């Protein structure tokens, strides 16, 4: 079940909200949420729900076991931790990477091993990483193990963030499980966030998907040349895809955060206007923040982080970016995608130190644009069905093997979609924040008339967005959710 579906919006959500708020006690509210979350997952994955339940049980047992003090068994805690991580990663490897590994073994060693065709359970990468972070945090004594199985199950299966993040740390919601207070402010904020996220997903991302797909689908390899792909259309496709993936994913995160607020949970932000980043390092502080911070805290820092010799740091970065690429998909293009970011980060760190360059304002502007261009190129690799198509596409963007600079059809694509592209560009920028900062001050906002006017305008916008989003859902708009199978 996805948030932008009719079944979720007009069946699941109203029923769950009603039952949740009808039930008086916190304990029963948690039970309602747990049952709803399990049903939410089972609706999309009626078989793999059992995988998640087993994962919850194992991590529950591991969490308790790893927190105990064992006499005459000094390293037992560590062994339990390793076993738990091994189990979690095994689940992930079997469902997500086994086919990839076997396929590569067959190719490299010319074997004929059986290629398993295993479906990928939705959200497995997300709840597995949450489970791993829980057990590690218990081991490191950052948190107390959750002795109540149902509460741990609630944390791991909570439906707002189950399928596509953000990856929530147990420490962030530990107190919320027992002591959260639902209130009108949070509920209203949650609704606003949800509507905005829904609009981003179905109005922007899905429309951009049509544009990006129409260009990238036309980029058929034909005798070494990308058929019908000019430099302009290659860039248009890349930019459209960059926008699509941003609104797709950030929209879903907004909906997840909004839903969390409706139930009294505060999730961390997952995006912070990433296309305004002034460096690749800055980009990864703004994009999928929960994932990048997870890798930083559970892989990079334990490996040594920035400490040690240059080679050690480079090694650490290599491991992190290899894993980041692989996390996104079991395919070599994702590994290359991670590798490209590794190279860009190393360049920023050691060849063109970004911090010094950013001291000049003109450099900041230039590097923002350069960063966006690099990001667009990496998304091309991310989207490609294989590495060579991705590289050839980027070649077209740079004028290599393109069918010319411009064709009239490129003009049609741009003219037909300029409103959409313009709106997307606007929505990528933190204009609300800028407006607040630059044009208004506290004194002005306290004026009652202006306050009320802004409130009315905001309400109108939200109502319009809601109706247009529902209309788009009714249309059965082409709606590929890119991060669904991660």
């Amino acid at each position: 079940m996805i948030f932008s579906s009719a079944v979720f919006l007009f069946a699941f959500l109203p029923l769950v909200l009603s039952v949740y708020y009808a039930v008086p006690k916190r304990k029963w509210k948690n039970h309602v949420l747990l049952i709803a979350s399990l049903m939410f997952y089972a609706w999309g994955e009626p078989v793999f729900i059992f995988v998640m339940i087993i994962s919850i049980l194992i991590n529950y047992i591991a969490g308790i076991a790893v927190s105990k003090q064992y006499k005459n068994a000094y390293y037992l805690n560590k062994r339990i931790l390793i076993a738990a991580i091994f189990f979690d990663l095994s689940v992930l490897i079997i469902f997500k990477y086994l086919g990839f590994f076997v396929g590569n073994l067959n190719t490299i060693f010319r074997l004929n091993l059986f290629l398993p065709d295993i479906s990928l359970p939705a959200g497995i990468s997300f709840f597995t990483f949450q489970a791993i972070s829980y057990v590690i945090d218990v081991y490191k004594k950052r948190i107390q193990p959750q002795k109540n199985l149902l509460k741990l199950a609630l944390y791991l299966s909570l439906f707002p963030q189950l399928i596509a993040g953000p990856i929530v740390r147990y420490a962030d919601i530990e107190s919320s499980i027992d002591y959260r207070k639902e209130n009108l402010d949070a509920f209203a904020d949650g609704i606003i966030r949800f509507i905005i996220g829904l609009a981003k997903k179905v109005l922007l991302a899905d429309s951009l998907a049509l544009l990006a797909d129409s260009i990238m689908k036309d980029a058929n390899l034909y005798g070494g040349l990308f058929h019908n792909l000019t430099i302009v259309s290659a860039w248009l496709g890349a930019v459209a895809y960059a926008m699509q993936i941003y609104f797709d994913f950030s929209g879903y995160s907004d909906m997840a955060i909004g839903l969390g607020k409706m139930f009294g949970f505060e999730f961390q932000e997952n995006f912070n206007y990433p296309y305004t980043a002034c460096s690749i390092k800055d980009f990864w502080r703004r994009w999928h923040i929960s994932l990048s911070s997870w890798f930083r805290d559970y892989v990079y820092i334990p490996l040594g982080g920035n400490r040690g010799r240059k080679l050690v740091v480079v090694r650490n970065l290599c491991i992190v970016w290899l894993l980041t690429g692989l996390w996104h998909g079991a395919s070599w293009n994702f590994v290359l995608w991670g590798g490209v970011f590794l190279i860009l980060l190393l360049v920023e760190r050691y060849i063109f130190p970004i911090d010094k360059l950013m001291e000049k304002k003109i450099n900041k502007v230039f590097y923002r644009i350069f960063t966006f261009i690099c990001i667009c190129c990496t998304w091309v690799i991310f989207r490609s069905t294989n590495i060579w198509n991705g590289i050839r596409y980027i070649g077209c963007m740079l004028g290599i093997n393109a069918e010319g600079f411009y064709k009239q059809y490129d003009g049609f694509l741009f003219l037909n979609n300029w409103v959409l592209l313009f709106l997307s560009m606007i929505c990528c920028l933190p204009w609300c924040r800028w407006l607040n900062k630059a044009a208004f001050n506290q004194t002005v906002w306290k004026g009652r008339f202006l306050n009320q006017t802004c409130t009315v305008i905001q309400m109108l916008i939200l109502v319009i967005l809601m109706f247009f989003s529902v209309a788009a859902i009714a249309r059965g708009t082409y709606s590929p959710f890119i991060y669904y199978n991660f």
Partner: protein
Amino acid sequence: MYEKSIGSKVCLSAFFCMILWLFLILELAVNAKEIIHRVKCITPRTAEDTIREINFIYEENIPFRTCLLRLDSCRRLIVNKWGYEDSNGFIVKDSDNRLHSLCGQVSGEILDSEIESLETLAYYCKASDIPFVYVQAPFKADTYENDLPYGVEDYSGENSDYVLNKLNQHGIDTLDLRKYLTGKDVFYKTDHHWQIKSAFEASVIIEKAISSYDSLSGINQEYFGDLSNYENIIYEDFLGSYGRRTGQSYSGLESFTYLFPLFDTNFRFQHRKNGEAVTDKNGAFENALISNPLESDYYCSYMNNSYEEIIIENLLSENDKRILVISDSFGRTMCCYLSLYFSMLVNLDTQEGRFDGSVKAYIDEYRPDAVIVMFNSGMYEYEKTYEGLSS
């Protein structure tokens, strides 16, 4: 940041919950029985299929669907003024607000393989002493000097010219309807099909052409080809195939005119699927050949919303001639009028997923007095359609 009042928060929360509950109640009111029935059928083995069905039922019956679709098409009108795209492809709007899908340039290799299929069938007919003619139906973007949006090109004319030239070079009889059917009113504004009047004119032109064959000479044509012998039944709320995809706000509505004979007719209509009769109707033209339209799709009401294998017997025919027409949906309307001239007309639709039997076996069994293959220029992009001809 400005502060939102409590009142606004209450209003927002109430609005949101009200919308969700309103849709829930209306959905259940329409779909509850069906959903309960599906839920009862859930077993672990079929859980996935059952859930998929419930999802489908729920999504197909969203409340206020028509209004929501119109609202969405308003949005598309603002955001994508010149062209509309969905998972089924691209539709562009010309300066007269007519909707078109466009033909790409089909490679010579693909066209040659399709020509080969046509020729195989043509030679088979020739060997059986059955006249064969390939009829090129027009394509919407090619019928007049329309002002398509900047940068958009249509290659339907080029593709058709290539095929017709090659067939003529190899001695295959062809009939190019594009020469006769030109102008803005050949096709519907919001549909990819030709108008009923165009289909009627096509039937007259085709009948005149094939009556030159010895096996079909001496058939009275003029009466059936005179428009004054038909009455016009007009509906003003036609939303064609493109219009249903883009939404009424994007395309607008147009009128649809049925042409019903004023003279006596008596037909037997059969629709067969995998050799078995699915529909068997008798009656006058407008009763036997035309049914109630589904969702105002008047065009598809011809041939009773059916395709694959259609047999039309003209019980008042003054001759015993039999015609086999292999066509796409353009033939659906044309064949209804063409059947006035002959005692039997069989229409096969060889597009993918439709008639997949052997055309040659059909010819052997029915021994038609002529075989007509008619496709519009857009069909060159669908190779499977032509593969079925030579089976």
